[in-house]
Structures are given as C-alpha cells and as structure tokens.
C-alpha cells in the first residue's frame, strides 16, 4: 500500500505573526517557514505504518510555491520515500485554496493509487480544516477526521476521533482519508543519515495544469486583523483575595 501525505508550508509556529499594513494578510516576507505541525504528525504516522510493514511507500506532496521544496525535503529527511511538488504560485503570499488543493490531490491520487491519504486536520495559518474532507468528497472515499488513533487493517481502518466532549471510534472502508489531530503521535527528529539521504530521494515537480486544475483564487480576503491585546493580569496575595476579586468580577 502506498500512503500519500500532503504537507503545507506555513509560517513557523514560533514566529510572532504580523498583519500586513494593507490588511490583506499576514506578512510572510523574510519570515521563518516550516511544515504545518499537523502535517508533521501525518508524516510521522505514515512512516510508522511503513515501519510496521503496513505500507510500502510514503509519498509526500506539497502544493504551493517553489520554496515548498524545503518542506518536502524535511518530510524526506523524516523518512518519506519520495515527493511531489506542485508549483501553483510564485508569490509566497498566495494561499492556494482548499478546493484547488483537493482537486490537485485528486489528480495525484488518480495517478498514484494510494490506499490511504494521511493529512493534517488543518493548517495553522488559516485554520480552514477543509482540504481532507473535500478530497474525500471528490474521490467518493470514506474519511476519518481529527484522528487521535489510527489502526489500519486489510480492508478497513479503525479511527478514533477527538470530538467535542469525548472520543468517537469509527470503522472506515479502505481506501480512506484520515485527517490527524495533535495527540496522534509525537513526530520524530530527522536523523542525520536521513538528512544526508533526503537530497538523493526523488522529488518530482508538477503544475496544477498537469492535473487539469485552475488554482486561481475564488475567495477574496476583505480584512485581516490582529486579535485584541489581552489586558494585563494581577498577582493576588492569598486565596481569600482571589475569591474576593472573582466575586467582584461576578465570576463566582
């Protein structure tokens, strides 16, 4: 079985985000970019499936700008076998919308015929939480979203989902799409031998046109705003004082 893992290049989670002066989005020029943390978890899970003998090949895919190559090399250094880069934009500020990404991924799935697509539940940049679900719809496949545990059997997979207020365990028919949540695993560091090997692993470059997809944006961002600054807290001297303050604030 092949496992396909789509990975997105996003602003690093440690970077303090700055809104561009014109409000059209977040400033990404000269900012550290990394693999979306949820996608890292997906890559890790795919590699574990391979190590467990349940998958033969792990293919990492990224749709975006040329620089996404770095993100794919990271996936290769973690242990993915090969990579496909779909260059859909020149400007790092161009965000390829979920539907376009899902359509491109469908083209890749048609070509590669993976038995499983593992992707992050959402990207930490715009939190769309849509690509995996859209891909399932386009393919007519089953889906298990927000996975905190995945067990792949021959013709089905058992997926534990983190839903509001608890866990839900579902059985989905293979091939399937699983979007992964934070607690599924802890991604590994790239080992030094794998870092050195990553460059020699194949990385194919494609365009949306290769899959008959027009990746032009359909959505328009009207405004991007920074969240309101939090008011400073206070340090209380005792439990009594804390209770009193909470009472004053109408919290208890």
């Amino acid at each position: 079985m092949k496992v396909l893992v789509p990975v997105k290049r996003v602003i690093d989670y440690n970077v303090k985000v700055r809104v561009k002066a014109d409000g059209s989005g977040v400033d990404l020029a000269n900012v550290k970019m990394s693999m979306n943390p949820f996608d890292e978890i997906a890559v890790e899970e795919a590699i574990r499936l391979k190590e467990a003998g349940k998958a033969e090949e792990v293919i990492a895919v990224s749709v975006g700008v040329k620089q996404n190559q770095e993100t794919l090399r990271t996936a290769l250094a973690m242990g993915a076998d090969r990579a496909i880069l779909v260059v859909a934009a020149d400007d790092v500020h161009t965000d390829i919308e979920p539907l376009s990404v899902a359509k491109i991924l469908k083209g890749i799935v048609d070509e590669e015929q993976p038995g499983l697509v593992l992707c992050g539940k959402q990207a930490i940049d715009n939190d769309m939480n849509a690509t995996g679900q859209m891909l399932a719809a386009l393919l007519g496949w089953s889906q298990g979203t927000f996975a905190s545990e995945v067990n792949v059997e021959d013709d089905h997979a058992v997926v534990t989902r983190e839903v509001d207020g608890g866990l839900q365990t579902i059985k989905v028919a293979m091939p399937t799409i699983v979007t992964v949540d934070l607690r599924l695993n802890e991604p590994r560091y790239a080992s030094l031998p794998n870092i050195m090997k990553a460059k020699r692993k194949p990385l194919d470059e494609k365009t949306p046109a290769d899959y008959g997809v027009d990746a032009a944006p359909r959505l328009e961002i009207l405004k991007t705003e920074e969240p309101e600054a939090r008011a400073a807290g206070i340090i209380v001297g005792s439990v009594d004082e804390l209770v009193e303050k909470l009472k004053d604030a109408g919290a208890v």
Partner: protein
Amino acid sequence: MQFGLSQEQEMIVETVRSFVEHEIYPHEAEVERTGTVPVELGNEIKQKCIDLGFYACNFPEEVGGAGLSHFDFTLVERELGRGSMALTHFFGRPQNILMACNDEQRERYLLPAVRGERMDALAMTEPDAGSDVRGMKCQAVKDGDDWVVNGSKHFISGAEHADFFIVFIATGVDETPKGPKKRITTFLVDRDTPGFDVRHGYNSVSHKGYKNYILSFDDCRLPQAQVLGEVDGGFAVMNEWLYATRLTVAAFSVGRARRCFDMALNYSAERKQFGQPIGKFQGVGFQIADMITEIDAADWLTLSAAWRLDEGLPSNREIASAKLYASEMLARVTDTTLQIYGGMGLMDDFPIERFWRDARVERIWDGTSEIQRHIISRDLLRPLGA
C-alpha cells in the same frame, strides 16, 4: 562566493536546534539549581543522539561517525551552544584526537567512544601549567616496559562521566636557549587504573553542572600500549587534532549569543517604560543594533575559519580570530542583555544571569584571549622577521 547553507545544512541546523529546544531547555533550570545532571537524564539524551545518528558526528564514517566536515560540525556546535553545556555534553562529541589510536587502541578506545559506550575526557592543564603547557610537572618515567606517572591535572571537564582520559604527560626535557622545555607524550588512562584518582575540583561560576575535576597520579603504572601516538610526540598529536577545538568555543559563543539576543530583542519590544517599548529609546535600540552586528560578524568569522580548515588552507590565525572575537562578543552581548533586562536580569528567574556567568569562561579556556592575540600577531609578524 556563496553565503547560503545547503538544504542538508539547513536541516542539520534545524534538527539540532529543535533538539536543544525540546530535549535540553526544559532541564536547564534544574541542572543549574542542583549543579548536577541526573544519570538517567544524561543517558536518555545520549541514547536519543545515538538513535538520531548525531552521536560522534565529528568522526569519519569508516569508524562509525557521520563524517561531517569541519563546517557542518561547526554548525552543530553552534546550535548546541544555545543549550546548557552540562546537558549538551551528552550530545556526544568525543575528542577527535582519538583518531590517533593505533589498531589495537581503536578497539579499546576509539570505536567504543564513537558508539557511545565509553566516554572520554581530555587532560592537559595543571595548577602551574596553564597557557605554558611545556611547563607541566606531571611526569612519566620509563620503568621496564611500563611508565610510572606522578603528578596532577586540574580543571578537567567531562571527567565526571569519563570512562577513560586522554592525558598529556611530560616524558623528558629539552634544554633550549629559553630554558628547559618539557617533552610531552599523550597517554590513554582508564578510570580504574591503580594509582590514578579522579576527584571533585572547584566550584565555578560558569557552566554549573559541567563540573571540573582534579586528576592525580601516584606511582601510577601505565603500560607502553597506553601511549597515544609517539613517545615525546604529544605536541604533534596536539597540533594535528586539537588545532580545531577553538572553533568549538567560537561556535558555542555565537549560538549562545543568538539565544541571548532573541531574549533582549523581544524584551526591548515588550517592556514599556515612560509609555513606550524600551527598544524605542535610542540608548536601547542602538545596543540591539550593535549586538546583532557583532553576532553576525562572529558567526561569519567562525564559519569562514571552519571552511578554510575544510579547504586545507592555513587557518591557525583565522581560528584564533574567531575564538577571540566570538568569546569576547558573547561577553558583551550577555552583559548588554542583562543591562536591558535591568534588575530582573540578575535574578535567576531568567536565564540571563546564567548566560552572563557562563560567558566568562569562554575568554579563558581553550587558550585565553591573550594567547589567541599572541597567535594572531605572531602569525603576522614572524614572516616579517619580528
């Protein structure tokens, strides 16, 4: 000329930095408070490094290392410099000098060291022989097939966890116009050798938990098989293999300075006095500007010296410049950062006071700033006959 890193190098940097941030930072405060690294923690860090193939990455592939170039290894050291030295010690970089092992010594020392089974420590300094290495008193006298060693060494880092020591010992004396100079031989000394003792050294303000030890030899018998390299060849071994250790200090200083700087920068942007972020006051803003300029300069000086070493170009002076400038830069950066933090900078709630204390030793060990200046000036003046 090209200044960027390759993708592999970028990934090495990112991986080591991430390792330090996630596996080292969380334990630093505890190590600083207790002055010691729990055995289990040290072993855990070591095992993770072995699993990641980073352990002994400074060694060639044919002996089980990763075969990193001086440049790539300097990048590793730079990122490790961010973290506590007591903890990054377990990231395992055995002394390169072990490459001087003969076939039989390889099995006993070099290969187990590269595999992480035996840890090493290097011993040269004595109470009366610091920069003046050839003034050492610890001496070995030939007795049949053995050497009988008497004397002591101090300031020995890594001794706490070392299974064996690489020790420089006087084995003779040359009369020179400048007075007597000792001939020096390098010995491999197992920790449990009779007549050899390892004991606690001094309490240092720098690098708590990365303790220094005192070694003493009392009629300690070492068989000829313990000689590393040639008898009286200690200087040759030193010059071939210890030449580059100064780069480690330079790289450490750059990494540590960047961590410290990031704190200074963020604090200058967040801390408000008189109704504005303190970074907006030129007095602070200009300090930020000076700090990053010096850090970048030290970084390039260090990387270019490492590059020269890989290219086989003369690099003694360049390495000395990198060690000198980077360690002195770190002193200024940690001091300025502390000043920007004000009173809080002195409190151990923040790591700033620790960075400030740690920085002090970098200008002293692996050749003091004065020795580096001597090397640099001699390198320039000697060809002119001065």
